[in-house]
């Protein structure tokens, strides 16, 4: 304990705080009139323990919904057969829509630019060949 701490303690003790007999009798009298309360029982929080119950309930609810939805789902083939059963014509299989891509495009649309390019290249080669030939004839 350093000097500072000693001084703090010394000066605190310098504060005169004698309890008068009147105050003590007041305290005793008031304590006699007070009933101590029993400690309230600590209530355990149920959500922490029963977290699985809510999860299980949710899972069961989802399963029930799936089962109910499947039971109530109309069977299209059997319905069609029931409808056509009374007719004279033999039942026809129901055509299911089939989506096919539109392939009605000419191949020329894709190839014509390349063909033009090929012709140009061939013309250029021909010109180059002519030039070479002229040069050869001129040289020799």
């Amino acid at each position: 304990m350093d000097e500072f701490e000693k001084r703090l303690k010394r000066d605190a003790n310098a504060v005169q705080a004698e309890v008068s007999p009147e105050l003590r009798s007041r305290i005793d009298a008031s304590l006699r009139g007070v009933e101590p309360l029993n400690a309230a029982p600590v209530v355990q929080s149920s959500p922490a323990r029963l977290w699985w119950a809510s999860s299980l309930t949710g899972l069961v609810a989802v399963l029930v919904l799936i089962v109910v939805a499947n039971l109530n789902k109309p069977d299209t083939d059997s319905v069609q057969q029931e409808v056509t059963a009374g007719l004279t014509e033999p039942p026809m299989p129901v055509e299911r829509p089939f989506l096919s891509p539109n392939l009605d495009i000419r191949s020329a649309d894709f190839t014509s630019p390349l063909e033009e390019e090929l012709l140009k290249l061939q013309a250029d080669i021909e010109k180059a060949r002519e030039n070479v030939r002229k040069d050869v004839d001129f040289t020799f």
Partner: protein
Amino acid sequence: MLTDEQLVQASLQGGANAFDELVGRYQERLLRFLLTRSSCRADAEDAVQDTFISAYRYLASFDPRWRFSTWIYRIALRNLGKQRRLEYHESDEALAAEDDPMQNCIDHSERENVWLVARRLLTPEAYTAMWLRYVEDMSVKEISKSLDKSLSWTKVTLLRGRRRLTAELAVERTGASQRESYGRI
């Protein structure tokens, strides 16, 4: 000699004199602390009385992991807070020096009581933290529990309070030595 906590247990088991013993141990300590914080002696005495009544009533809720002093000071501080709020509503007038119970009950010496300096310089909470640390010898953890503050707040407050007071006392010493040297001249 039984500890405070053993006396609490004895009181809970119906020991008639156990709580009287606790009152005897703490009445003067609590009154001394409350005198330095209340606006008059009557308020300090009322706060002491209310503190013991609350402690006795709720003794069963005392957590034996903590020291009894921590718990009872916490109750005393709550009572003090209630009193302060009442006073605030009743009157906004500043405390007159002649009514100050601390001024009236300290030994008049040449130098100023350091707790008067502390009360002037520090916030009420910092003052209380310093009192609990250096007069009641409470640990930082116990002080933070009593004041319902964090450990870091308590540490920083104690450090700042100590620095502030040390600096003030150093100035006081310098002034005194200067006065002595002037006197010699």
